[in-house]
């Protein structure tokens, strides 16, 4: 397990794949991911493409670890905007309306045998009923 600071953001692939549809294979492939610094991947003992569990005080999610092409950023994990990132984020907005979608403390651990939930399963997990 490693401790990281989590940031979410736009990626080119996220922008393209959301236009292909939120339920498309491409969207899940490009958005249900966590970009990690190569050194952090090594510390975790995870190969790019294997699943990890990302946990914050507010939630946890299984996504695919990939090696960042925007390194170095040791200790920082990047997840593109989308439902997998959002459920990890605090709802408090500190009188601005904006939840803290960047700079949140998180832990990451290998979860090679666990399944990445598709958007419909994620919604079911959050709201407790079939969408």
């Amino acid at each position, binding site marked *: 397990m490693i401790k990281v*600071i989590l*940031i*979410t*953001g*736009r*990626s*080119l692939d996220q*922008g*393209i794949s959301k*236009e*292909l*549809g*939120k*339920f*498309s294979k491409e969207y899940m492939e490009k958005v249900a991911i966590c970009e990690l610094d190569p050194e952090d991947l090594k510390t975790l003992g995870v190969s790019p493409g294997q699943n990890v569990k990302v946990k914050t005080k*507010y*939630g946890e999610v299984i996504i695919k670890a990939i090696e*960042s*092409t*925007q*390194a*170095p*950023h040791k200790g*920082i994990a*990047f997840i593109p*905007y*989308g*439902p997998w990132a*959002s*459920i990890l*984020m*605090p*709802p*408090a*907005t*500190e*009188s*601005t*309306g*904006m*939840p*803290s*979608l*960047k*700079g949140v403390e998180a832990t990451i651990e290998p979860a090679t045998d666990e399944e990445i939930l598709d*958007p*419909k399963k994620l*919604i079911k997990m*959050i*709201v*407790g*009923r079939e*969408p």
Partner: protein
Amino acid sequence: MRTISNVVCPFCGSLCDDIEVDVEDNRIVKVRRGCAISVTKFTKYNEERIYKPRINGKEVSLEEAIDEAVKILANAKYPALYGWSSTSTEAINIGVEIAELIGGVMDNTASVCHGPTIIGEQDAGISTCTLGQVKNRADLIIYWGCNPVHAHPRHMARYSAASKGRFIKGRKERKVIVVDVRKTHTAKTADIFIQVKPNSDYELLTALRWAVKNGELEQEEISGIPAEKIEELADMLISCRFGALFFGLGLTMSAGKARNIEAAVALVRELNNYTKFVMMPMRGHFNVTGANEVMAWATGFPFAVDFSRGYPFYNPGDTTFVDVLTRGDCDAALIVASDPVSGFPAEAIRNLAKIPVITLDHHETLTTTISKVVIPTTVVGIETEGSAYRMDAVPLRLKKLVEPPPGIPSDEEVLKMILKKLKERVK
């Protein structure tokens, strides 16, 4: 086949207006000059398309869907109207009228993107300009907490770092500085990269302002950056002839939020004692600036406007949609051209799923799956014309390129139908 020129791209706040498309048999078959996202949007907008209105997942006529939407909104005590950044200015205007009529709270997606920027600007003012001025005159560009290579792919070539202006001819005549927590693809194109520690932009902005004003810093290191480097940076900023600070959600979403923007405003204000310096937020959705503009002219406030008192009331952190939802205050929601279920914290989504939601969109989203009423609409800038505001608040006219599927109205038309019926009920 016909070719349409000077098409405005309805994706990001750059609103590139030089796109050329070929249309054959009512289909866009070729897109020239668009970025990868733009080409995908123009050619794949029919993916996961909604063709029929629905109530509780069952297909209904447009009239039945409108009647149900009107019933929900008229019966709600505190309805919320949210989204608006990916539709036309004309549609947003009708939205404001509906919100006022039913005493609802109207918010746009700025509240989860550059809302803190607006709050910071309202507190401290802003020195800004149009993108044309940056292109023609800026010899120094800073990208702070933004990654245009990914989020605004043609911004650097058309308006900023590499644009060919009248007085500044191109990239070689500009200094480019990137401040970010990662060495982003934008950072890799910069002359100077400053890797700030997460959640410490406020300190760095303040230290930089001190260095601009007073020269030397007392500390050895601030926000992970050696003092000498900050002092060098300050000298560089003072020495430019026209500097432009573009900033993104790296400032608005991390610790400090609106206070980070105030620190950036203060830095830019200080720099104007020595040279010309401007700043501009990198706005995301193509008409999020328009949503702020329309709501500001119509109500006096650019987002998070609550009409429940009978007059417009604005209090971010209270009347913003995430907060309204997290508290479980609203009892109905109208979502236009937006997908809050994809981007909101879990607690807010749970509460949204408990209330009747009406969603207007052209394609399926996570939000349509939890909506009671779904009304399909046209794609603005592809199937419907309308106006939108670029990130520098310059309005541009979006074109109609192809016919929409039969029987599908625009957001503006649906909202007008809802407004008309609501007015009849209120009488």
